[in-house]
């Protein structure tokens, strides 16, 4: 079975600033990949390529064997429905209630009756561990809860892949733990493929099946967490030492 996402020789620059310099990455279906890297290493740019938000200068992005780079409009939209994305700050529509936020993709893409929508929203909110928040507005929720609502919205169309953009950034340790649990829950209950972009080493080691380390536009190391810990790559060692060194 081929990997669900294959990235081949991906290059991307903004002006003179080359951000990605030949990325090759395979993501197996049903696994959780964490792309680890420092700030400005191009993690977010890499993720945006996976869902077609950015077009590469060179290289291919295959989703279930289909190259999405040349796609546009309707075809790209069809590919995007395979993804659910959880944004760093949740990116909930703050003019809508939690219920409306979670129901939004359903209303846009599925022709369902209101009662069916209500049922699905309730189900997904239960999966992410939320109850009785439907009528609240995003501004009334805590950061961790907002992220859970973001996940509920991301999985409402039952996607195959969920992308997490820096899910634990800026959260306190307890909330970080809460979000990590959420990612593990989603994988366990839905069996989805997860791609997590993070610079949080602890969180990465907790949720990842595999970790890819991104530095200076290259993937310098990838493999299971244990392999990364033993890595002799200087960039990896330097990065990990900031955390493991303290222990």
């Amino acid at each position, binding site marked *: 079975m081929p990997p669900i996402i294959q990235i081949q020789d991906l290059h991307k620059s*903004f*002006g003179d600033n080359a951000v990605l310099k030949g990325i090759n990455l395979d993501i197996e279906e049903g696994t959780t990949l964490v792309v680890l890297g420092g700030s400005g290493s191009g993690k977010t740019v890499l993720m945006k390529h996976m869902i077609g*938000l950015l077009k590469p200068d060179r290289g291919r992005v295959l989703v279930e064997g289909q190259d999405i780079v040349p796609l546009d409009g309707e075809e790209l*939209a069809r590919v*995007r429905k395979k993804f659910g*994305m959880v*944004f760093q*700050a949740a*990116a909930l*529509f703050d003019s809508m209630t939690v219920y409306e936020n979670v129901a939004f993709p359903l209303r846009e893409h599925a022709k369902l009756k209101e009662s069916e929508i209500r049922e699905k929203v309730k189900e997904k909110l239960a999966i992410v561990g939320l109850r009785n928040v439907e009528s609240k507005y995003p501004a009334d929720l805590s950061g961790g809860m907002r992220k859970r609502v973001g996940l509920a919205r991301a999985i409402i169309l039952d996607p195959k892949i969920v992308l997490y953009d820096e899910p634990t950034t800026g959260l306190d340790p307890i909330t970080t733990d809460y979000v990590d649990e959420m990612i593990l829950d989603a994988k366990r209950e839905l069996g989805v493929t997860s791609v997590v972009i993070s610079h949080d080493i602890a969180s990465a080691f907790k949720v990842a099946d595999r970790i890819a380390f991104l530095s200076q536009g290259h993937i310098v190391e990838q493999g299971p967490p244990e392999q990364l810990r033993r890595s002799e790559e200087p960039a990896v060692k330097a990065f990990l030492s900031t955390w493991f060194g303290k222990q």
Partner: protein
Amino acid sequence: MATDAEKSPEAAPDEPNTFVEGVENVGRGVINSISSFGGMATLAWEILRWSVRPPYRLQNLFAQLDFVGVGSIFIVCLTGTFTGMVFAQQSSRAFELFGAESLVGPTVALTITRELAPVFTALMVTMRAGSAMCTELGTMRVTEQVDALETMAVSPVQYLLVPRVLAGLIMVPMLTMLFDTSGMVGGFFVSVTLKGMSAGTWLARTQTWLDPEDIFEGLIKAAVFGFAVSLISCYRGFNASGGAKGVGKATTEAMVGSALAIFILDYFVGVILH
């Protein structure tokens, strides 16, 4: 199409030289407005393309029509009434000098319908609705709500921009009509009640001088302004970057750009129509 460019930090000059900085700012402003003109044209084309494609998001459109139009009724009527009153007051003073007070009505009517109503209405809409549009879109952009829309396979242009620009295009002429009416009422009130002119003369003279073309000219201008103002506000907000500060900057640019666009377009539309 959504580019998240402008990540490159701006090269700040080492020495604080206010003069050079000032000139640079002017130059950057000019370059910026030229390059953004291209961006706006592209965006306008996108909006046009998306506005004719289903699904038609009527609920969003109505929400914007309500916000831009209904929400501006009070301020537009108020501005209109006082503009008419001030204009009648001042022009009657001038016309009194050579005993032609009967021209006050036509003067008020013509200036309001042809110039003041579309320009002031567009300025009011810019201040009230344009700024809100820009801030809202800018906030959505920097909090990744725009990206979220896109990842959910919903076109942000269609979902967010089309209703706003259409609302500007439709509602500014409507509001201009209200401005016309309230301005005439204000002018009539000052001329007849306070200045003691004959109501009959006022109306008859106005009727003689005012042509349907004058009203239509104002409405065409209003439609152009409404489109331009909402397009500029949307463009600035949609392309905002850099957090709350970036949104603020975008809003300022949108306001200045809209106001300039109104006055510049006023001239060109006037030239084209005649």
